[in-house]
């Protein structure tokens, strides 16, 4: 029973791998036009030479906001863990 389940799941994984090898988009042709747009227009739109900074802080600024929130939560958690405890508090 377990051998049959393992064989079936292995067959499914191999089928996905073979299918993705045939269905992959051609080399050098990205599936979206967004990167070409950003590379061509980021200097004029954001005035930034560094396209990575333009993507991080302008086009995908909301993602950076989430990253900053993650850091804030991490610092809050560490300080809360290592803070002084009052007497009698566990």
């Amino acid at each position, binding site marked *: 029973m377990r051998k049959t389940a393992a064989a079936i799941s292995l067959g499914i994984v191999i089928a996905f791998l073979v299918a993705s090898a045939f269905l992959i988009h051609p080399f050098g042709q990205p599936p979206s036009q967004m990167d070409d747009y950003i590379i061509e227009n980021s200097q004029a739109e954001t*005035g930034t030479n560094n396209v990575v900074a333009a993507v991080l802080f302008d086009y995908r600024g909301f993602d950076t*906001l989430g990253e900053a929130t993650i850091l804030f939560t991490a610092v809050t958690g560490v*300080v809360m863990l*290592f803070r002084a405890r009052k007497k009698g508090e566990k």
Partner: protein
Amino acid sequence: MMMSKIVRTVSNILVLLVFIFGLYIIMHGHVTPGGGFQGGAVVASGAALIIVAFGSQNVQKRLKEHHLSILESSGALIFIGLAFGGLATIFFYNFLVGSPLFGHVPPSGPNPGDVWTGGVIPLMNVGVGLKVLAGLSAIILVMALTSSGVEVEE
């Protein structure tokens, strides 16, 4: 717990270079590779050097943990305030391009680079850099203090 005089003297000299390099990475984040996160991590590594060399209890006399917390929160406020500043068009709109503050627009394609460009991006880099350097320094300081047996106030 303080390390020997040689280590203290060398780290006294070295930490200035580390801080200057970190601030350079933060301020040039929109021209060269780097930015707020990376430069803040470099500055926090300088703080770690100072804490290792001089001992966390001596550092704590000059650098309180809640001051770092205030610095981190102000960095986050700078960042999200600049994000709200462009709300007349859209959230995170770059409203400073073309204005007198960081308003130059570089020519398209390869160019020598100009620090006075980028609109809100250098200011956001400063905000995120403040946030990361204060946050990571606070983590290092609190952990070092706790491992040396001192209970952190606040």
